[in-house]
Structure formats: C-alpha cells, structure tokens
C-alpha cells in the first residue's frame, strides 16, 4: 500500500468506529484525538480493525505511533507492504 492507500485505510476504519464524524477532511499532521472524538476504547477498535482487515499486530507500547495519520503511514508502511486496501462496501470514502 502506498501513502494515499494507508491514509484511506485508516480513514475507513475510523469512519466505521466513529460514524458521526467527518473523516474526509482529517489533517495528516495533527493528532487524531485532537480532531475528532476518540477515546481509548475507540483506539482499541482501530487496533482490532487493523488486525482483522490486514493481519497487522500492533503491540500496546507502539500504540503511540498511530497518533496522527502521518504517524500511521510511517509506522504501518512496512507492515502493510504488499497488502491490498480493504474498504467497507458502505464506506463514505472514495473507492
């Protein structure tokens, strides 16, 4: 997955977890929790969805790497190499 695809993948997961939020316009360099309402349970949901959709395991001590979308790209890039973007059929994001 390239940078755009990883951002799309994360935004699609967030759209599932926080369906009341507008994820289209999320800035990539600002902490996600400063832009939308995300608590620790939501964060665990993001980690769970990464595991279910892409088989990616994120150890607890590395959760902080997922604080921003840019951080997600840097951290997840190697883990998502060669994987295919999976979006929900009803995703609000462009396919």
């Amino acid at each position, binding site marked *: 997955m390239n940078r755009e695809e990883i951002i799309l993948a994360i935004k699609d997961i967030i759209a599932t977890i926080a*369906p009341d939020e507008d994820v289209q316009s999320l800035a990539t360099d600002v902490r996600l929790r400063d832009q939308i*309402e995300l608590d620790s349970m939501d964060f665990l949901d993001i980690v769970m969805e990464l*595991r279910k959709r892409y088989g990616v395991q994120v150890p607890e001590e590395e959760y902080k790497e997922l604080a921003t979308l840019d951080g997600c790209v840097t951290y997840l890039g190697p883990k998502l190499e060669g994987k295919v973007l999976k979006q929900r059929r009803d995703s609000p994001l462009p396919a």
Partner: protein
Amino acid sequence: MSLPRVVITGIGLTSPNGNSLAEYRQNLLSKVSGVREWEIRHVGKTPAGVCDFDALRWQKRKELRRGTRAGSISVYCAGDAFREAGIDIATRDRSRVGVYIGTTEHGNVETENQIHEVAQYDFDLSYWSHHHNPRTVANNPAGETALAFGITGPAYCIGAACAAGNLGLVHGMQMLQLGEVDLALGGGVSESIHTFGIFASFRAQGALATHADPTKASRPFDMDRNGIVVSEGGCLFALERLDDALARGARIYGEVVGHCVNSDAADFVLPLAERQNECMRGALAKAGIGPDDVDIVSSHATATPQGDQQECEALRAVFGDSKHTHINNTKSYIGHTMGAAGALELAGNLPSFDDGWVHPTINVDRLDPTCEVRNLVLNEPVRASRVDHVLNLSFGMLGINSAVVIRRYRA
C-alpha cells in the same frame, strides 16, 4: 406505615406493533399483530416480534455501535418517557433520578456474537472484543440510559425472568417512597430475539410457537396454541411522588396502588396456580380492594399449553365471582417481550381509564375449555362501563410471580 403515593406521569415504549403509546394502543384496539417472520442463525426462520423504532432519536451512531440493542431500546424508551412526562431532564437534579430496568436475561446476544466472531479466527482470543464486558454486565441497559441522559443517581437492572417489567415498576415506586430519588424510570426491556439460544432452548423444551402465518403464531388460550413467540421491546414509566407530580401540573396516567412478588419454590420452569393465586390476592390486599373492584386483568399467558392452564385456574379461583372483571392478553399481538412484557402489557391497558375500551386477546379460534374464565375478552374489544383498576400479571422461570394494581387517578 403511611407511604407517599406514587403515580405514572410518562410512558416511553417500543413494541413490535407500535413505537408510542398512541400507536400501540390503536393497534391493540384494531387487532393488529406485530409478529412477523424472523431469521436467526442456527435456528432459521421463526415467528418473532421485531421493533423498528428510531434508534437515533436519543443516541448517536457511535453510541449505538458501542452499546447493545437492550441499551438502545432502554435509551429510546427513557427519552420518550421523559418527553411524554413533560420533563426536560437536563434541567433536573440528575443525582436524584433513578433508573430501574427489568430484564429477563442480558449478555447472551453479545456473547453469542463474540463467539461467532472468534470462531472465524480459530478461537484466537486476540480477536475477542474489548467491548464484551461493558456490553454484557447485567446493568448494561440501565447504565447506557444513565450515560445517554447524564443521570448520576442509581441506575441498575433487575433480573426477574419474565416478571421483570413489573418489578422495574415496583422497584421504582419503592425507591420514590423511600425518598431515595425524586424521579424514577421503571419498567423493562428485551433484546432476546437477537440470541439464537433462547429460541433453541424453547424449541428443545417443546415451547417455541410455530404457525404458517406469523401473525397467528401467538395464540394464548386457543386449542391450537403450541408455544411462545419470542419478541424484543421495551417500556419505561416515568414515576413520581403524587405531590411532586401535582406541583408541576403533570398529566397522571394512573397510581401504583398495589403489588405483590412471590416465589413458587417448586420447579425451574413449570408455573404453579396456587402461588399465582396468592400473588394476585396479595396485590389486591395491598391496594385495599377485592376481586370485583378489578376492571381489567392483563394476563401473563404465553401460549404454552400448561402455563395458560395454570394461570386460568388461578384466575378462576380469584375472579370466578367477579361480574365486572375483564380479562385480556397482549402477547397474542406482540408475542412474549420477555423483560419488557410486564411493563408493555400494562401500558397497553392504561388508556382504558380514559376511553373505557378493553382490548381483546386475539387468535382464539377455538377456546381451550381448560382456559375458560369468566369475562375473557375474546377477539373483539369490549366497552367497559368504567375502568378504575387494572391488575397486571407477569410470571417467570424459577417460579417468580408478580402482580401490580394501577388505579385511575383520583384526588
């Protein structure tokens, strides 16, 4: 001991045949069933009572996703109960508000879902959801209600099998009488149609209804009844001490004047007419009335062969000489809404204080002679000369019996 009088000042409900008291009542008087075909994993197609309320009326999508169906039903009923009571909950001292929700069972739906989920990952428990515990704790429906409305007073559930709806109401009344709270929500909810286990267990017991036409599947007192239609639903009453209700000019739906809860101590599943009889008489004694003062008995009958017989035996013993007592049944329309049943079935009868109509029990094509009871209202509504007292019966597994008497409000 003189205790403060407690009255019902608001009703929020969702039933398989109506999402407000007005719609529900209209459908009871028009004989409209809410039972339809329902498909659930491992069981297949079966009749069930399914609700289609506006779950986003009082909650956001994220809250729905995180919570449970029982929580969603509770929040819907609570929001509507406050609104119907004319109460802006945000302006109240919410530390003095109590939430008492009866449930038959809770957690089965969520546990089955989780097991189904991890089964797809070869039972790797790293796929087990962190939401499992907050969804399955026994206070979940009440806790979600407290969260949704910022209620900081006592909020918890009362597990009482199918008597639970009555018990939520009774407990709310008692907490008001004790001065523990100034406003109470009491009633019950059910999300049971989303667990295959409840259908499978009733089927294994030979107590799950089947019928080619789902709307005819729930048929208490009929010769061809063959079991229970499982349903979801909810009903919460806003309860206040009479003085508080009068002070704010609230509309009063009725006064909770009598109740009784007892136990058979006899069998896990079989009912016992003798204890049901004692329970009814206990509620009447507390209300200070005799059987003939009861205008409507809202029966519990679930359409199992033996359960209906036992209840009718108890009803004949208590009301056999009562000329003015009408007996009806609401499960014939909506199936068995489990934890919600007591509250929903009572709510369906409360408008009788105003309009004088008694809705019938439907689907009785051939009355079982062992279920013959004086003034059983069959298939067509009847007009009562006047309705002053409704007795609502709800019984449950492990032999729990409950009876509640509501009186038309009089100063």
